[in-house]
């Protein structure tokens, strides 16, 4: 595999890696006369998944005859079928609004015989992905998240977590074509909106049949699976012990009784699911004010170019210069309503004043944007938890990546406004669960 070509094709200078997750945000109305339906309630439906599975499998079976693949491929396929596991490579793909998340299982128990039989393109993919930590200028392997010595479908190996911006999807598909991925007869299991948006491109450009998977099923399966295997001996799930304390410790949380669970997935937008069991969940609501809003507004307000930069600015800013607090209006607490003086009364409220606009720094604006979006998500999550009578809330999604400020604020806000009734939980692999779920679907293929 020509890594040089991939690098060249993926190079798009000045692009930002933004947070996303395999979710669309709340279908917020576009035009007041738009006739959108909001699908607030929906039960997991396993039949739709298996139906999709059937058609994909059919496609897979039809494949070999039409390509002049080597006898080696045919041998490998026979062996795989015998062991009831799919052909390598094993990928799970989650194409979100902003980021593509790719998980790749690297088998470490390859026998000499297997290695010999391994076609060149497969080998080069493995080498390329596992020997690099960055792909082009925008693809990144989150090495710290790698899960080692995992046993999947009887194979031992490492699970790698890779992300790149969705706007580089065309380059990714082009690479697949250039490298003749289709000859590997692998199935691409993909979830997220991009599985639909890019399906045709995969087929016509890359000659690859995507197996589209329900993103919410993938998300939940991914979370449950990753939690069950832990994080290289450590706990996957964690919480903040004393959220009111800014120095509070991140502590492991044993999610042994996961249900019921409110799952808040913060990608470009936000989806909120109430999960009652592995197969019983519903999408409660969502909001269009998500990670994409934070980063988008930060770009407009500060001229920053990356999510990391936006967060760095936010970490150095002071939102109280931008927001109007209760104490700015009442001089202290608003006792009539039991509102403490530090409560934000109006996000960006101070910016109504020209003088204060001029006095606010870019860092202050970035911080206020982060606080505004985070508080709002916390508030909607709290309302959902109340409505659904659920008290553990798991926040996932790439908005939370390296975003301790948001996590601590969510933990604090949930604890404070629920008077200690609600617990905010987080997960180490925050944005990758959809992709993991997609990979798991691949492994279900007999």
């Amino acid at each position, binding site marked *: 595999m020509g890594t040089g070509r991939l690098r060249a094709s993926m190079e798009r200078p000045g692009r930002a890696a933004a947070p996303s997750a395999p979710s669309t945000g709340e279908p917020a109305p*576009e035009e007041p006369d738009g006739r959108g339906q909001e699908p607030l309630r929906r039960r997991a439906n396993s039949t739709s998944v298996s139906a999709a599975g059937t058609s994909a499998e059919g496609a897979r079976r039809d494949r070999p005859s039409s390509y002049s693949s080597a006898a080696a491929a045919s041998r490998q396929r026979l062996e795989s079928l015998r062991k009831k596991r799919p052909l390598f490579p094993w990928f799970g793909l989650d194409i979100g609004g902003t980021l593509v998340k790719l998980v790749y299982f690297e088998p470490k128990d390859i026998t000499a015989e297997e290695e010999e039989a391994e076609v060149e393109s497969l080998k080069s993919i493995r080498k390329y992905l596992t020997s690099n930590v960055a792909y082009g200028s925008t693809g990144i392997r989150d090495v710290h998240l790698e899960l080692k010595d995992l046993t999947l479908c009887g194979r031992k190996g490492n699970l790698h977590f890779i992300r790149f911006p969705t706007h580089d999807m065309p380059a990714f598909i082009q690479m697949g074509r250039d490298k003749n991925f289709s000859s590997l007869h692998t199935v691409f299991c993909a979830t997220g909106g991009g599985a639909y948006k890019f399906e045709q491109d995969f087929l016509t450009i890359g000659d690859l049949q995507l197996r589209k998977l329900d993103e919410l099923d993938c998300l939940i399966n991914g979370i449950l699976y990753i939690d069950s295997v832990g994080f290289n001996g450590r706990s996957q799930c964690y919480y903040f012990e004393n959220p009111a304390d800014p120095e509070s410790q991140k502590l492991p949380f044993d999610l042994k009784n996961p249900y019921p669970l409110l799952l808040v997935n913060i990608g470009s937008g936000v989806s909120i699911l109430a999960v009652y069991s592995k197969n019983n969940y519903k999408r409660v609501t969502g909001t*269009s004010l998500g990670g994409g809003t934070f980063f988008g507004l930060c770009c407009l307000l500060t001229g920053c170019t990356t999510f990391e930069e936006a967060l760095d600015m936010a970490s150095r800013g002071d939102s109280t210069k931008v927001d109007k607090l209760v104490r700015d209006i009442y001089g202290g607490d608003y006792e009539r309503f039991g509102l403490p003086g530090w409560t934000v009364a109006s996000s960006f409220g101070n910016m109504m004043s020209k003088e204060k606009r001029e006095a606010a720094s870019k860092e202050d604006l970035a911080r206020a944007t982060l606080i505004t979006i985070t508080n709002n998500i916390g508030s909607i999550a709290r309302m959902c938890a109340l409505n659904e009578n659920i008290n553990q809330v798991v926040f996932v999604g790439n908005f939370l990546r390296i975003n301790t400020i948001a996590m601590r604020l969510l933990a604090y806000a949930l604890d404070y406004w629920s008077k200690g009734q609600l617990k905010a939980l987080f997960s180490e692999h925050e944005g990758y669960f959809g992709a993991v779920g997609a990979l798991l679907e691949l492994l279900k293929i007999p």
Partner: protein
Amino acid sequence: MAECGASGGGSSGDGLDKSITLPPDEIFRNLENAKRFAIDIGGSLTKLAYYSTVQHKVARVRSFDHAGQDAERDRESPYEISVQEEVTPRLHFIKFENSYIEACLDFVRDHLVNTETKVIHATGGGAYKFKDLIEQKLGLRVAKEDVMTCLIKGCNFVLKNIPHEAFAYQKDADPEFRFQTNHPHIFPYLLVNIGSGVSIVKVETEDRFEWIGGSSIGGGTFWGLGALLTRTQKFDELLHLAARGQHANVDMLVQDIYGGAHQTLGLSGNLIASSFGKSATTDQEFFPEDMAKSLLHMISNDIGQLACFYARLHGLDRVYFGGFFIRGHPVTMRTITYSISFFSKGEVQALFLRHEGYLGAIGAFLKGAEQDNPDQYSWGENYAGSSGLMSSAPELGPAQGTLKGGTFDLLEMDRLERPLVSLPLLLDPASYVPDTVDLTDDALARKYWLGCFEDALDGVVKRAVASQPGAADAAERAEKFRHKYWDKLQTLRLQPFAYGTLTVRSLLDTREHCLNEFNFPDPYSQVKQKENGVALRCFRQVVQALDALAWEERQLALVRGLLAGNVFDWGAKAVSDVLESDPQFGFEEAKRKLEERPWLVDSYDTWLQRLKGPPHKCALIFADNSGVDVILGVFPFVRELLSRGTEVILACNSGPALNDVTYGESLLVAEHIAAMDPVIHSALGEERLLLMQTGSSSPCLDLSRLDERLAVLVQERGADLVVIEGMGRAVHTNYGAALRCESLKLAVLKNPWLATRLGGRLFSVIFKFEAPAQ
């Protein structure tokens, strides 16, 4: 969060404008009697409230002193009329831009006579900022009142006292405002106040409300963030920008992620997946319009979602929105309405208030006026003195009360003599709509009736002048009246929704309010006096003729008498023409004018059948005109009911309207009839015939706003028949009113346009007898 618009933000740089000149009789009226001041200072607008009294001439009728010598005059007139001065309490509310506050305070101090006032009750974020100015200018001590308490008090007040206060907003509909019938029980409701932040308050009773939630993403976020993003400083300008923008250039839509709609979740492709999701790039410039629009959607959707959560959590379906973010702005009303309907799947409707901007001032005033017990009275919006709701569509701009250099909006509320309640016999008070035709809806009818009232104006002016022969300034006042009413009609042509749903009733009421404003309390008093005199002289003869008839013939004759009496109506132009030209036009001739049976609407046979059955327990009759109508039409009918063993409550207007018989007149007329007729005499004595007042001064009838004592009596006596007579009460209003008892609605159509519209002709008869509605 509570409204705190007066951050000193956008308005602080404006400076105070002292150059304004205020015409005293137009803006701060009745200051000389003013007491109990309150002020609400928001981010850009100040609302001043005060209680004052208005001295009005009222026409009173009373019996002649029996020792009087003038027998000649006694035969001509059954009673005498005197014009007296009466003082009625009125609440004044004036809304103006903060930049005029100094000029306005100076004006108020210069015109203030009453020195008892020591305190001004103040609310709103700016109350603190302007405290010193107010104390220094007015010499009154500022007593600060809690913002939210004032808001809720004000909200309760308008919901109770102003019909058509609440409306739903429908974009692109004509009219865009859909007014709501006031619910007889206003509690519980949710108030979502969108000031700089958002407060969500659940209101359970007059005194109990609870802050149940809020959000920091509100009007201040739109304004502050909008100013940062677009370099546009003013709130209104930001809304203008937003109205022109395309948010899809900035927002990431479902179709941007999925390539189309999301099938399994059923999400349409053009829904917003991530607000500002497309702006996460440095490659592209974005238009201020598009960003403003995206911001507007983001904030409106967020608030709508939150409001739906709370509405659902607390099981409330009445959700009112207020605060400066909303305040009559079509752009925000539209996005909020959409958001609420979207998130509640149509279960919750966003409601807005006509006088939303005044709630704080009304509440602060009420807080300060508790010793006057304003809550124990009913109040009515004075159409003559109130600006009404103006469309503030960005392209139109504020239209009303524009003086040289400033915009003033007024609201005046009159204290009504007595508390008003719903008629207990209404089938469903919550869905009762008095008016038959909604002129806001029906453009054709609106055009006709506005023209009709314009055409009739000359005659009304003439009559007004004629009614006060001794007054030197009558002609001048009548001209002022003409201008005032003409202006109102022109306003209503442009903004039919200005005072709620436009109806024939509201046009008539507005005319009465304008006449009163210029001290023409009862232009028809002499006409009515004369007609009553003439009719009383005929009474004995009419009754004798009726008594000579066989039972069945008599029933028809009584009904024809009722109808013929109804032809005498100075309110209808066709009739006033005939009456003006031929004063001798008599009862008999009126009968001849009547359409022969079958009438246009004719359930007389059913009525006759019903009369053959057991007598009604008690009949409630709403009378119409003075003179022939009440004396030769209604009283003989009453007499027959009494003879059948039916008790009768005869309800007449409390105050004058056109030639309608007033309660005062009905007492004198009944006294005269009782002197001639033993049936009436004994019934009055034994309280089988009761004369009551309706609490109204309108030629029409709103059964949801009736004198409480009348309602109580109706219940006590177990009324099982309601008779509503006349075009104003039985056709313009109540034609479709559903009652829990039998009802008889009868009228003669004296308006050719209306008659044609109903499929009849001039003097067609409506006789509608109905069984209790289910």
